[in-house]
């Protein structure tokens, strides 16, 4: 029942899953569930029916007529994209009549289409080119002049070249149906029809670039990529976006440049990740911070008050010497370590281990944006209760408490919208402010500010909370009705923001345990916030949320550990003020800039910072080491749901080093035996030949395998894969299939349920408050994000209507 425009219907909509249907296509017998579109049924047996306007998951158009096929007993050719399979149907997808029809369609399109393929961004990746190749016109029948129009710039990132547009309406649909933005329309009619932006001559939208990615030709092009390169001149590296906590897979187009390897494009055309074809503006364009001119490309050492360039040797020697001095003289307690939410699991694990084993301190922390330890504690001995990002796409019902995914978790919002649209999932929203996802909600409870925890208690049956929930928007009756509906749901996915912490999470877990099949998602803000938590960047927790007081298997593996819990970040600040914190080691984090710490706090401490930029924290450092970012190294990230994914090296900027290598080098400079920090080359943990040269021949096989996967097969202590072996062995939940991981598949990890012990200090959680166009410190160095910001009207909020 396909209808265009909003609220329309989609393939298979309303069709009950009845018995399968048998049909014959090109002589092949096949079976498909009733309600399947013919074009999809063909695809399932490897018969590709060409199309421009058909796009899975978007409403049907039947406009391009490329998918015509011959169906027996039907006088006219039929469009496979709008035909539902029926019992006994006999179909020919490639006979003379069909080929002629398609050829004519291509001829007609080319009649008015510029043949500027050599300079078109889509050249080599153009569906019209491919179609012409398959059915094409050898001789042009048309001799009239083509309609010409100047190209238009619709936004900092979106360009529109009208004559190239073939009016497949994919962009209009993905913007409206997919993104719920509706910034593109169709204007005029007939041959004057044109895709039009919502603001006369420009776009006001979420700048996600989905329209560009989905355009089959070069009509919509990206301001970031256009005219930079040809697709076949790029290397394509599938990795994970480094911005928010959702963990979209992104395929980066990379080419050589003066300073190494430059990333020129991000997209997801192969739909191979948890995000299918989705990317938000940050994933698609904001890799450009990597090429910012403000990047530090050389180690810096403070000399007579000024940060001066130095050599790596000098820097490591100095750091090693001073760290060892402080540790040996004042003890580990005098050293603080601040880790990152954007470094890999391997780096976070290594940093956690380095702090405890080499620096002999538990003073480890990071910028906490969600209370993962509370969730781990609450889920103790309740496995199977967390949801993956993929689950959000298929769950029959979703409850969202707090947070505004449209701005803070764009992929989560996309998954929710898609599920509601295509599968009619029920969404319930409980929030203290109106949010855009309300539009998709089957139930919405508007809370007074800060009443999220009370709502959770109410959900759990505590009716005494009811009075404090009532707001202008939601009455007592409405709350009760909402609770009844939520409680009646099976297999509910509950996603909650940082509004819920500590005890509230405990309560929520008991609510969720009382519902059949419910699962949870705790929303943290950065690309590897969850990984930072899982890898134990806490003063009281080791990797896997293991309390430091019960070193357990870590004691066996790592050796003697400090058993007293260490200082949290605010406590480190206090200690520094009291002159007790002699050294501070900051890896990929900007606590001064992001957490509002007085920059003079650490004036008496030795401050070592690893970063890409001279952040507020780096400017007060004694030594600054230029770091590579996650697009420039390999490893793994865990998204906020707990989906583990491989991070692959795409770009490279000479003069920088991955944090992993820097940590190892500092340990080395401190005289520590790095082999006991990183189990490389020892062959002790050989599995499937993926560990360093286990048995004879293994190493070579491993090297070949890694090479094939772009994974730096270095037999060195700087290879993060060595640490991944250890993580998989000792961190609860991480023992997933390595083969699947290396093959690029995401794997869900249960939040380690190892028992209580997390320090419930809700005040330590500081939400990042990023929106669609900001991304912590990184965002400040993204030219794209800045230019979009400059182009926004004063109130840059996307209206929550």
């Amino acid at each position: 029942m396909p209808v265009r425009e909003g609220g329309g219907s989609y393939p298979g909509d309303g069709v009950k899953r009845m018995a399968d249907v048998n049909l014959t296509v090109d002589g092949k017998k096949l079976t498909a569930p009733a309600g399947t579109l013919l074009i999809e049924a063909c695809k399932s047996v490897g018969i590709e029916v060409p199309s421009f306007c058909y796009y899975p998951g978007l409403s049907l158009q039947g406009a391009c007529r490329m998918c015509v096929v011959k169906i027996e007993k039907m006088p006219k050719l039929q469009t496979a994209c709008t035909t539902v399979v029926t019992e006994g149907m006999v179909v020919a997808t490639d006979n003379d009549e069909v080929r002629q029809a398609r050829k004519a369609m291509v001829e007609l399109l080319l009649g008015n289409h510029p043949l500027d393929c050599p300079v078109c961004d889509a050249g080599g990746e153009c569906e019209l080119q491919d179609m012409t190749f398959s059915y094409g016109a050898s001789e042009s029948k048309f001799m009239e002049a083509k309609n010409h129009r100047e190209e238009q710039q619709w936004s900092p990132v979106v360009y529109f070249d009208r004559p190239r547009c073939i009016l497949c309406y994919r962009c209009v649909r993905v913007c409206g149906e997919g993104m719920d933005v509706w910034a593109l329309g169709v204007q005029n009619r007939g041959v004057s029809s044109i895709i039009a932006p919502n603001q006369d001559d420009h776009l006001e939208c979420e700048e996600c670039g989905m329209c560009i990615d989905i355009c089959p030709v070069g009509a919509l092009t990206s301001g970031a990529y256009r005219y930079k390169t040809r697709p076949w001149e790029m290397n394509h590296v599938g990795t994970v976006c480094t911005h928010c906590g959702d963990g979209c897979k992104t395929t980066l187009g990379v080419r050589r440049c003066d300073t190494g390897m430059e990333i020129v494009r991000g997209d997801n055309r192969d739909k191979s990740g948890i995000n299918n074809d989705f990317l938000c503006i940050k994933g698609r364009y904001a890799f450009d911070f990597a090429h910012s001119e403000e990047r530090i490309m050389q180690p810096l050492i403070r000399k007579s008050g000024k940060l001066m360039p130095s050599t790596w040797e000098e820097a490591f020697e100095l750091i090693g010497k001073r760290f060892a001095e402080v540790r040996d003289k004042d003890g580990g307690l005098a050293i603080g370590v601040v880790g990152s939410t954007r470094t890999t699991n391997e780096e976070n694990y290594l940093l956690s281990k380095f702090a405890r084993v080499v620096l002999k301190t538990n003073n480890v922390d990071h910028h906490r944006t969600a209370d993962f330890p509370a969730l781990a504690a609450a889920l103790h001995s309740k496995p199977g209760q967390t949801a993956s990002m993929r689950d959000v796409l298929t769950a029959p019902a979703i409850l969202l408490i707090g947070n505004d995914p449209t701005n803070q978790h764009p992929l989560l919002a996309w998954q929710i919208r898609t599920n509601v649209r295509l599968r009619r999932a029920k969404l319930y929203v409980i929030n203290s402010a109106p949010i855009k996802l309300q539009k998709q909600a089957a139930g919405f409870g508007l809370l007074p500010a800060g009443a999220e925890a009370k709502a959770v208690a109410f959900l759990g049956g505590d009716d005494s909370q009811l009075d404090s929930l009532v707001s202008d928007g939601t009455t007592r009756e409405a709350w009760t009705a909402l609770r009844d509906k939520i409680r009646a749901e099976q297999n509910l996915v509950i996603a909650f923001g940082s509004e819920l912490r500590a005890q509230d999470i405990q309560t929520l877990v008991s609510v969720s345990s009382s519902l059949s099949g419910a699962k949870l998602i705790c929303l943290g803000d950065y690309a590897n916030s969850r990984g930072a938590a899982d890898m134990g960047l806490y003063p009281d927790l080791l990797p896997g949320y293991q309390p430091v007081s019960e070193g357990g298997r870590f004691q066996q593996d790592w050796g003697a550990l400090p058993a007293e819990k260490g200082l949290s970040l605010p406590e480190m600040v206090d200690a520094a003020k009291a002159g007790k914190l002699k050294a501070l080691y900051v890896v990929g984090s900007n606590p001064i800039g992001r957490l509002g710490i007085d920059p003079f706090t650490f004036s008496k401490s030795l401050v070592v910072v690893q970063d890409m930029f001279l952040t507020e924290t780096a400017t007060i450092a004694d030594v600054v080491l230029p770091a590579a970012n996650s697009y420039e190294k390999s490893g793994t990230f865990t998204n906020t749901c707990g989906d583990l994914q491989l991070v692959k090296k795409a770009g490279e900027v000479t003069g920088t080093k991955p944090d992993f290598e820097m940590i190892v080098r500092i340990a080395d400079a401190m005289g520590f035996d790095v082999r006991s920090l990183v189990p490389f080359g020892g062959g002790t943990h050989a599995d499937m030949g993926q560990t360093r040269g286990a048995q004879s021949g293994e190493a070579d096989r491993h090297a070949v395998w890694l090479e094939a996967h772009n994974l730096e097969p270095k037999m060195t202590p700087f290879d993060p894969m060595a640490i991944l072996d250890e993580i998989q062995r000792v961190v609860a939940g991480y023992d997933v299939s390595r083969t699947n991981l290396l093959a690029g598949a995401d794997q869900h990890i249960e939040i380690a349920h190892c028992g209580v012990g997390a320090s419930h200090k809700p005040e330590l959680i500081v939400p990042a408050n990023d929106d669609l166009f900001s991304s912590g410190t990184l965002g400040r160095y993204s030219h794209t994000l800045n230019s979009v910001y400059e182009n926004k009207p004063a109130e840059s909020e996307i209206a929550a209507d």
Partner: protein
Amino acid sequence: MASLVSHPDEVRVISKRFGQGATDIDRYLQLDGYKAVQKALSMQPDAIINEVKNSGLRGRGGAGFSTGMKWSFVPKQSAKPKYVLCNGDESEPGTCKDRLIFEHDPHSVIEGVMIAAIAVQSHTGYIYIRGEYRYLSVIMQKAIKDAYAKGFLGKNIFGSGYDLDIYWHGGAGAYEVGEESALMESLEGKRGVPRIRPPFPAVVGLWGGPTVINNAETLAAVPHIILGGAEWYAGLGTPKNGGTRLFCLSGNLNKPGVYELPMGYNLKKMIYEVGGGIPNGRGLKAVVPGGSSTPVLLPEEIDIPMDFDSVGKAGSMLGSGGVVVLDDTTCIVNFALRTIKFYQHESCGWCIPCREGTDWLKKTLTRFHAGAGLKKDIDNIYYLSENMLGKTFCPLGDAAAMPTMAFVKKFRKEFEDHLDGKPCPFEKAADRIPAMA
């Protein structure tokens, strides 16, 4: 106000009240008005449908589908409201009949909608009138108001316990909106782009509800069928083509006008007797028998009964009843160009073959008519039309392709006479430089 004509061969059913002041509701009542609907209220819905089926009434909008059959496709049970929609978008060039019905007998359309509604058990009807017909909208709005005032519409109509609302709705200039699903889009406040079918309107139509859509003339015939009986109505026409219809005679005729003639009336007779023949002693060159989308007939092809089946057999279509007569001074290339200009202008632009095809046909024919045609253009024009035919999203593409193919096929020589920079062999060709963008 359009002027009325008459001819002794006319059989006045639909046009019975033309010129009788029937826009006035009391006058309409005097002329047997609103009797049929009261009769229908006392009938079983299925009996109404059967009556209409047996009358042989076929859609006057162009396709000639059995009206009773169409109504029978509407599901008896429906979760969503059902609707009846009167298509008064009348835009097919050569057609100007619905206009007369609205002008002279608006209540007959209302009554037809009412009977259709009762037959399919719908409680809401809409009468969609093209935007250019503003004065008819005024007439129709008043007629509806008067019907409400008498209690014929609204709650409990005629004290029957049946509720029925009918509303007027207006267009704003778009031929494509006459296509049934595009009309629904338009009524829903959208661009007039047709919908994917199936599902057909009878199952999923306006706002997703089952919908009967009929041409205004079709609906205006219904009260007469209910009152006069199926047998009587069927007997007026030929087998499978019941009743009479309004034929719009236009073009090079002595007495153009809208005449009501029985289905199956001879086309040649229609032209030479009813229409008064060709003026100024000129000869007949061709006839477009059913509106501009129907393939042209040559003089030797017009001795045929004007019913859906016979005209179909002759290689054309009865269409919307617009008989356009071309005398022998007409340049066929120019005529083909003007026809395609219309479809190019009115294509909604949704699908490739129609959007691009009509534009290329227009461009090629323009150049061709201006004297810059090449021999291969003739074949290309045919090739292009042939490749549009049956492949477009809605029948508008066919409407452009069919007449064009007929022009090329039947008047190839005339196309060839335009070749090689020769001026149009017909007078005033120089004036015929297209003015429209």
